[in-house]
């Protein structure tokens, strides 16, 4: 075996190992952030009984934690968009937006609303669903990893992921999956073909977003 081939194989291995580490880190962080969010949710619920200002601060912390969880989930989505994004993201996103709206409402002051506890329960419910999704995805990924793992690494999947993230939230799962599928196909040609494709996706993400905004009522709900 020539030293050049050996070097190329070593390079591929390093890139794959790096990818594996990124993936494991993303799972670890997403799990930790979700667990933390559960704890913070309980603190918000308790603070609500006695100190609404403090509850608002805690609700803001909760929104920050959920924002961190979503970033980790984005990494998972980019890597395994095909299998995870459509299920996982909406629950966490829902918990995040509810917590954030709740924190803002509390910060504005005013008398307690009779719906506050219902909101807390709704956030709790979304978090629970998100946690179950994460566990389920983890299991499915373990099964799927060997056979259908997208052959997409580093900069390429980051570009494709960014292109998907520029789209309206309801369309991201569909296009993330479509992009991943095509990137997987291009892996048969070359890494350069993948990179070019991903760069073009990014360049056309805004026109696509524009079209999807106009078509939102038709495309949403088809997942």
């Amino acid at each position, binding site marked *: 075996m020539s030293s050049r081939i050996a070097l190329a194989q070593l390079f591929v291995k390093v890139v794959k190992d790096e990818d594996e580490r990124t993936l494991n880190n993303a799972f670890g962080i997403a799990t930790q952030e979700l667990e933390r969010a559960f704890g913070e949710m309980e603190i918000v619920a308790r603070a609500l009984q006695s100190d609404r200002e403090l509850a608002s601060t805690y609700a803001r912390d909760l929104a920050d934690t959920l924002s961190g969880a979503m970033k980790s989930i984005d990494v998972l989505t980019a890597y395994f968009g*095909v299998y995870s994004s459509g299920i996982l993201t909406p629950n966490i996103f829902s918990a995040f937006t509810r917590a954030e709206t709740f924190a803002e409402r509390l910060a504005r002051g005013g008398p307690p609303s009779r719906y506050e506890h219902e909101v807390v329960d709704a956030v709790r419910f979304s978090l629970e669903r998100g946690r179950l999704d994460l566990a389920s995805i983890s299991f499915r990924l373990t099964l799927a990893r060997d056979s*259908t793992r997208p052959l997409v690494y580093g900069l390429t999947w980051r570009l494709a992921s960014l292109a998907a993230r520029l789209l309206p939230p309801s369309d991201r799962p569909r296009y993330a999956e*479509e992009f991943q599928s*095509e990137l997987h196909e291009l892996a048969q040609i070359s890494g350069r073909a993948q990179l070019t494709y991903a760069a073009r996706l990014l360049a056309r993400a805004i026109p696509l977003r524009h079209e999807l905004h106009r078509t939102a009522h038709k495309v949403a709900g088809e997942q």
Partner: protein
Amino acid sequence: MRESQEFPRLTAATVAVLRALLEEPTREVYGLQLCAMAALPTGTVHPILARLEKMEWLTSEWEQIDARAEGRPRRRYYKLSERGATRARAAIERAETQSAELRARHPGLAGGAA
């Protein structure tokens, strides 16, 4: 060209996509395949496809496969609708007529339907 409810904006790329689809109007194709058929660079057709889907000229659906068994993710397939095929032919014809008229008025002008 002004976009109407009847006709999408017919850029040269849109015309290329429609022509490719019209070669076999009942065939289902995925994005990369369509790029090859229309001689367009990869990764450039999604905004066009989204627009045509809005017009209901196209339908799209996920490939029904077991991704693990196939060893690859499922594809998103696009197909001309019956109405879309009729409209696409009319739109291309209209674009060609306009292009011919333009060339007749300005003989020095080159290029196709834009």
